[in-house]
């Protein structure tokens, strides 16, 4: 997967380049709209990460130009502007998702993967299996080995989201956004409590734990 990162702030660009490379992407980076456009016309990028506040042209205008040249790669917009209007404008002009600064690297990675999956349109499978955990997405049932898990609808949705992102760290914000469809930022440990409850049902004593806490970032579901 090859990405184009357009960001004029050198510190952020470097950190994105490093972080995304470590996450397994090939990364081309540009510091301004013009050089980014030169890179984009080659049409080799699977996705783009674009900052709105570029020194030469507006990020939104850059996206519009790239789209006009026939590129269909999904775009993740980064913005220091917080207002909803800009976000909407960004999405309308072909940006596909947005993040406001400051953001977590895990969130950038997760949103990019999400965009790439959406674009590649993989056939949906009705079952997910991670180690001895098995989810039946149609009947909304989960089993760990031989044991059937008694999960509430919320807990099932949460587990499904973690399973779909097996091996990848998801932040609390991402969980709230994807499981509860809410862009909120609670001051209390709302998400943690849900995870503890889920964990108490999934990771019972005697079996190797699947749900892991990555302190300061979020959670990951993986078999060690």
């Amino acid at each position: 997967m090859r990405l184009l990162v357009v960001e004029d702030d050198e510190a952020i660009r470097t950190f994105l380049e490093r972080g995304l490379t470590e996450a397994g992407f090939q990364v081309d980076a540009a510091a301004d709209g013009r050089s980014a456009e030169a890179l984009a016309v080659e049409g080799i990028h699977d996705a783009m990460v674009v900052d709105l506040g570029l020194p030469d042209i507006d990020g939104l205008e850059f996206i519009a130009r790239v789209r006009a040249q026939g590129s269909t790669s999904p775009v993740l917009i980064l913005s220091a502007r917080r207002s909803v209007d800009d976000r909407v404008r960004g999405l309308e002009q072909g940006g596909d998702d947005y993040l406001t600064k400051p953001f977590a690297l895990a969130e950038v990675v997760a949103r990019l993967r999400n965009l790439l999956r959406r674009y590649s349109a993989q056939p949906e499978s009705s079952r997910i299996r991670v180690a001895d955990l098995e989810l039946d997405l149609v009947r909304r049932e989960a089993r760990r080995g031989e044991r059937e898990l008694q999960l509430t609808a919320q807990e099932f949705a949460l587990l499904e989201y973690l399973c779909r992102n097996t091996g990848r760290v998801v932040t609390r914000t991402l969980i709230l956004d994807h499981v509860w469809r809410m862009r909120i930022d609670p001051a209390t440990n709302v998400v943690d409590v849900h995870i503890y409850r889920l964990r108490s049902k999934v990771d019972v004593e005697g079996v190797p734990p699947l749900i892991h806490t990555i302190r300061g970032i979020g959670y990951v579901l993986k078999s060690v």
Partner: protein
Amino acid sequence: MSLSLYSRARSTAAWRISIWTTVAFSICSAIAFVIMYLLVARDVQSRSDAWLTGEAETLSEVVANTPRDNLDTRLVAEVAELASHEVMAAEESNSQTQQSVFFLLTRTGREPIWVGPTPRTPFLGALPGAASQPGVPASIVVGGHPLPFRVVWNTAADGSRLYLGFADTAAAAMMRRMIVRFLMIWCGMALLGFAISAMGAFRTLQRVERISATVDRIGTEDLGKRLPEAEADDEISRLSRTFNRMLDRIQRSVNQIRIVTDSVAHDLKSPVTTIRGSLEVALLHGDSEDWRERVADAVEKLDRLSQTLNTALDLAEADAGALPLKLEALDLGVLVENLCDLFQPSFAERQHKLQCHVQAGLFIDGDPSLLSRTIANLLDNEVAHLPAGRQVAVSVCQCDQYAEMVLEDDGPGFPQELRARAFERFVKGQHSSGHGLGLAFVNAIVQAHGGCVTITDSSAGGAQIRIKLPLAKVPA
């Protein structure tokens, strides 16, 4: 000295007001006088015309009844002179009357009879210009006489023509005196009017002067100073009150800014210090066991910081009226229920009982993201501040044209001293670990949606927060 005083006075509004008042007053009184003058002049003329026509008829009769002999000329002249004397004697001296009345009788084949001022030539020249109708007075101007003469003529059966003319010098003198007197009185009135209006205007505007002097003295140091507020409810008193209210607001804002700066100093500086500290320790002992823990801790603290920053910025935008709302038809009941579902385990964790009764189908025009954050904020507050094992009830129902959300608990309630200022930013309870922006944010968002928030005691003795949001005009 007096010159500079004059030029200073000339630049004042009071001066201009007085001048304009005086000009308006003078013009109005002049118009009134002119109208009065014209009315009087008309009356005077109709009086003298009535005398003129009556006398001319009498004289005509005398002429007609006087036998034509050698004496008739003298007789008619005597009668004419007598008549003019008789009428005017009461008012004027003889010489003047004689000057102002003339009598002419033209007779076919005989010498005309002339009684009146000499020389008579200018009269004889001017008479053909008199009115063409007999018995109707008309004005003619006679050379050498300043006043026009009113003239009436009659024709007798024998073809002789009688002219009687009269210049009412007495009335003219009276009218002249009237004008002179009016001018004198008019000047006096204008001066007096100017003095009165100048005094009033100066006195009134002096109060404005005092206000501007006081306001001038109010700097940032003594923002507590206020203008004296008079009992009267006139414009100037209102100006003072408006100024005082503005000063109240400015003082509140300045205080608010002080609180915010103090709070930012405390709330942002101390986490920055601890973050820096723990990262520094991690750097110095990079190989130690707990460096991962320290970095994670720093990241969590940074998340809290950026959250505070975002809320503060949202609040600043809401205050400036610049918070962009992405409105859509929202079922408030569903929104609240979803949030309750999300928070339910957090409440259970602390042995609270969260009850949620919502009426579905109450649609409002709202920004889903901002309203979710608002309600999440309130639920966060409950989770964070309520002592363990309490009851919390959330309900949504319709109240007139509003959807009303009520959140109440049986906790210790809102501290009395905080209640009045609960919606101010950075106001928080003594043991609160929050950033103190929560309720200010709630209030700002609800107000931006055209609703209101109230805090009272709940029936269970705890706190009750009531949010009213206007229902959407057309239910979706």
